[in-house]
């Protein structure tokens, strides 16, 4: 569940204020976050994950009003409630695939559950690759590992950043299907940040937040360069 009201973010360095349209995403729903690069997609995702504080407006994510919490509370909340599939995956090359998933428990301060790690890897179809290092995986396999990591603790909100950017048509369709399937398996609200037309077409019926129409307002009146 995500609900925003009058959400705005002020860049500390330039003083530029970015205003976002209101969003209502029900639990289990899917939201397409569209926009050119530099249109504020990353900032919006960072706000949803509690990594940045909103300049103004109300923000409810996964049943929590984010402005009321800070520091360790936010970290614990993020560990519990947010799954994140980054574009670059960020699997640690020092650890095996299974240990990479183990980081989730380490970060959340929970006891490691090897059975759950095995189930999560099996669910995305790479159960037999648990002992490999990330650099021994193909691009598609690595993305599946990262997806397994994102949904390991059954988050309420799953954020995916450009999940199809570097994939061919067939792989992109597979990745998207698996992503949607994984999100619905834990009834997570799914947010897909993308500027990929294939995703837009595939999820034609999904709710959309298009940041291309959001005009940043600059106090200096200059054109915005992000």
């Amino acid at each position, binding site marked *: 569940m995500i609900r925003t009201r009058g959400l705005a973010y002020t860049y500390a360095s330039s003083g530029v204020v970015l205003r976002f349209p209101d969003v209502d995403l029900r639990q289990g729903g899917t939201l397409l976050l569209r926009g050119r690069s530099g249109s504020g997609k990353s900032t919006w*995702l960072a706000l949803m*994950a509690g990594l940045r504080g909103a300049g103004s407006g109300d923000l409810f994510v996964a049943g929590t009003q984010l402005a009321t919490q800070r520091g360790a509370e936010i*970290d614990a909340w*993020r*560990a519990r409630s947010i799954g994140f599939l*980054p574009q670059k995956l*960020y699997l*640690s090359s020092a650890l095996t695939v299974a240990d990479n998933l183990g980081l989730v428990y380490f*970060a959340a301060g929970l006891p490691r559950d090897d059975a759950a790690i095995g189930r999560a890897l099996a669910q995305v179809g790479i159960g037999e690759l648990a002992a490999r290092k990330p650099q021994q995986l193909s691009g598609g396999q690595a993305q599946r590992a990262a997806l397994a990591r994102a949904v390991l603790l059954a988050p309420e909100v799953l954020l995916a*950043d450009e999940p199809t950017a570097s994939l061919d048509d067939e792989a992109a369709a597979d990745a998207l299907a698996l992503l949607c399937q994984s999100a619905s398996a834990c009834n997570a609200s799914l947010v897909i940040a993308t500027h990929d037309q294939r995703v837009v077409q595939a999820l034609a019926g999904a709710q959309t937040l298009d940041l291309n129409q959001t005009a940043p307002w600059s106090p200096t009146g200059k054109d915005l360069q992000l």
Partner: protein
Amino acid sequence: MKSGAFKLARLSWHYLWSRPLAAVLNLLVLTLGLAAVTLVLLVATQLDKAFERDLTGIDLVVGAKGSPLQLILAGVFHIDAPTGNIPLQEVQALQANPLVAQVIPLSLGDSYRGYRIVGTTPDYVKHYEATLAEGALWQQPMDAVLGATVARGIVKADHAGAPLVEATFVGSHGLGGGGHAHGNHPYRVSGVLAPCGCVLDRLILTSTESVWMVHETDMATDAEDLALLQQEREVTVALVRYRTPLAAVSLPRKINSDTSMQAAAPAIEVTRLLRLLGVGADVLRAFGGVLLAVAALSVFIALWNAVRERRADLAMLRMLGAPPGRVAGLVLWEALWLAALASALGMLLGHGLAHGLGWVLQAQGLLPVTGWIWLPAEAGVPLLAAGVAALAALLPAMHAYNTDVADLLAQP
């Protein structure tokens, strides 16, 4: 929380060995620094203790005129040639002095296989509270008692398994070995001392009369000459214990000015000696310090690079909900692993080096040093290592603490 620290340690262990070359190099530098520190600690402490033990209860050393330091080194520690001999009569006069509680005469001059044969009185053994491992003290002239190190050395040389008591040997003239052998006067071993950790370990003890006997009969041309020699009997050194501390004020000066003898206060001379040796220890200590500083720098650079390389990993951990402290702890733990490993290896190496040094010193009949002891002060070595590692990890850990996760998202 306990399991949290365990997981932190386990994960940082993985990260440490994900860069094996850097880990091994840092371990090596840190280990060398700690080994140098351990070595200095072991050797300096043992030498201090050995000096102290050998000096206990000796207020004044009286011998022939010459260098006072040489007199102490020869008469107390038996690591230098004596300055000469002094007349027995003067020593006896000293004994009669009311300021003097005890005089232990020592007669040097002969050796066996490089070990000094010292003619003395049973008081010498009593003074160091040495006990007999086998046999008895000398009962008659030409009986000899072996120090523990001597006994070990001789057994290795040729006595394999045979009992030492009742064995005989022939002393040779001079302290270095290789001098004229006193073949007419073989010594009989009457006993072997238990190790006392003092200078007696390295000596062969006998009665003063034995030494006189060997030399007088060797030197005398006829019976008349022998009688003359017996009149002019000499000893090499007299170890003096005062009856009152006040004696320190007048007695040394009186001996130095009124007699042909020289009096040297061991406390003063040894302080002088340790100041000389101390320079060596300081150099070694400074060397260890430099190594540690280099190690700290090297660990710092390695961690700094590791944090930069692993910026994404650390940011991902934050993204997964790890509090900043846990991420910084990961970096700190990596340094602490290095410290722990380097402490173990460094102390092992330090002890090994000390033992090697002790072996060399032993072979030369010098001061006893061993690597097989643990000093309470060594507890400081792991602490030092942890301190160095923590210092090196401080900045990288803060860097990790301040990892901005949102930047991770913003990266194209």
